[in-house]
């Protein structure tokens, strides 16, 4: 089971950097856990903290002006490794939506499997989001999964986003893929026989 996704209205945290790869989201040295906990602390570790371990005041997550559970990132977010730890880190840090103009495939699969919604928007809409947040960090955005829309509540502009209907259903209901597959065991066994 994953957490059910409803409509979200929130401020957004901007990360206007392109090609943010999974090694930046969570460096390999933090992948040594055997349990799924504590990854949120190390999200964007090498940007977020200085070498002595103190928070880097220049990094957006350390700036109290920016809060909310929507992360807005530059194009091609999540490229690189298949490590699901990247999705866990984003989720554990309190985000429920990641907005970008382009996502890497594996990352998109991974976040969807964890109740985190990837919202792919046109380049122009993303630019407007960054500009809005820059001018007014408290600006609110609404993400409506049922309608598949994201709206900039300050400007009133909105856009539609795509999501696979099956994944949408899973998120709305809080189901995961394993629940689905476990119901198919007989069919899978029949398939094995026929091979």
């Amino acid at each position: 089971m994953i957490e059910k996704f409803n409509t979200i209205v929130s401020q957004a945290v901007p990360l206007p950097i392109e090609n943010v790869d999974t090694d930046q989201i969570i460096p390999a040295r933090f992948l040594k856990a055997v349990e799924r906990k504590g990854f949120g602390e190390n999200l964007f570790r090498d940007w977020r903290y200085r070498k002595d371990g103190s928070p880097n005041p220049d990094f957006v997550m350390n700036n109290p002006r920016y809060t909310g559970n929507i992360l807005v990132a530059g194009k091609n977010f999540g490229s690189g490794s298949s490590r699901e730890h990247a999705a866990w880190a984003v989720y554990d840090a309190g985000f429920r939506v990641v907005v970008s103009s382009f996502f890497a495939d594996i990352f998109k699969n991974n976040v969807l499997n964890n109740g985190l919604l990837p919202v792919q928007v046109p380049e122009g809409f993303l630019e407007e989001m960054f500009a809005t947040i820059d001018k007014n960090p408290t600006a609110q955005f609404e993400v409506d999964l049922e309608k598949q829309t994201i709206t900039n509540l300050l400007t009133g502009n909105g856009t539609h986003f795509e999501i696979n209907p099956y994944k949408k259903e899973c998120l709305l209901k809080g189901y995961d893929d394993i629940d689905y597959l476990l119901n198919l065991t007989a069919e899978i066994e029949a398939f094995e026989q026929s091979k």
Partner: protein
Amino acid sequence: MEPKTLFDKIWDAHVVNKIEGGPSVLYIDRHFIHEVTSPVAFSGLEKRGLKVFRPQNTVATPDHNVPTLEQHLPIREELSRNQVETLTKNCEKHGIPLYGLSHKWHGIVHIIGPELGITQPGMTIVCGDSHTSTHGAFGSIAFGIGTSEVEMVFASQCILQPKPKKMRINVEGNLAPNVTSKDIALYVISQISTSGGTGHFIEFAGSAIRSLSMEARMTLCNMSIECGARGGMIAPDETTYAYLKGREYAPNGKEWDRKVAEWKQLVTDEGAIFDTEYTFQASDIAPMITYGTNPGMGIAVDGTIPTGDSLAGSDKATFIKSLDYMGLKPGEKLEGKKIDYVFIGSCTNGRIEDFRQFAQYIRGKQKAPWVTAWIVPGSKQVEQQIREEGLIEILEAAGFALRQPGCSACLAMNDDKVPEGKYAVSTSNRNFEGRQGPGARTLLASPLVAAAAAVSGVITDPRD
């Protein structure tokens, strides 16, 4: 019948069920696991009270964070040791074959699968590591998955996957001497960018591809994901069969003949349609090296770093940030630049052919005194071959020491970390910020370019 691509033939033969408007339920023939991305999947399975559905279709090896020295001793670093021990316990509990550190078949997951003949044409293969695409070199659909998906495969031997689009990349003609499949990979990614393949599965074809050895094909398919693709594949042919024949888990006797006849059907039919197609000329490809922080930022080793003048907005900002990290300047030449580390290894270039090339270049030369070199075989079998073929003597005479198998500096989860600000010419697959250690500066290249740098201590064209 409608002409089909190689990809479609394999995919369609593995679809158990298709969800209306959703992904397909894809049956998985082989599941490779390692210590880093499996523990959470095992514990998820246990929380649901389940056993591994088909343990005999699963193969395990600890590779990502194992030390490359003194492997007979307990792993010193506690967290790494815990992950390796957890893998061992989970494999025992679920009856999964494990090739652990002391095993003669131990090695990097993507090296041992092919080496043992576990990887075969026509299969679907997954692993919680993005470079699973390596196995596509045998004409199989192989791709990396996340931990939730590892758990799905444990639970049902299936995975839910949307069908990707299809791309064909043709490379025609002959490669120049000293140009390798690593250079093809870096060249193609530099041309189509690190997101050029997103949403696609690539088939590599053309005369230059056909003439590659299995090792070289694996290097190319390994790197296919660095352009954003789900995976890469090459249709099986005589080279594939010759490589597989006689390997531990390869079919034998009558079964072999039956299988080969089946595998011969695994080609893209004339007239089959690809969503995207590119053709490159092998003669345009030089030995390559990267200068930036993604694998698409590559140039010919004797070339100059782009000026970035044609870029604008966030593309430009990203380019500048990347060069700043690397301590390099736009328009600069890399040749002659001093380097500090050389890494030969990883599932990209840790096979026997890579060490042969490296050894051939350095034979009779000496390692530059300021260069630290990590020479890491991809598996125990590769290590043994290095010894048996006498490559070890060549390495040692030139001042290089051989280490023990593992992922090592490819992702620097073990002790093999490049210090901050240091330059490493690396035969691995990623040059992301911090990939080889915090602040490390990675220049990706072939084993030959790495060999040339290791002996001269500066970036050098191996053709000179």
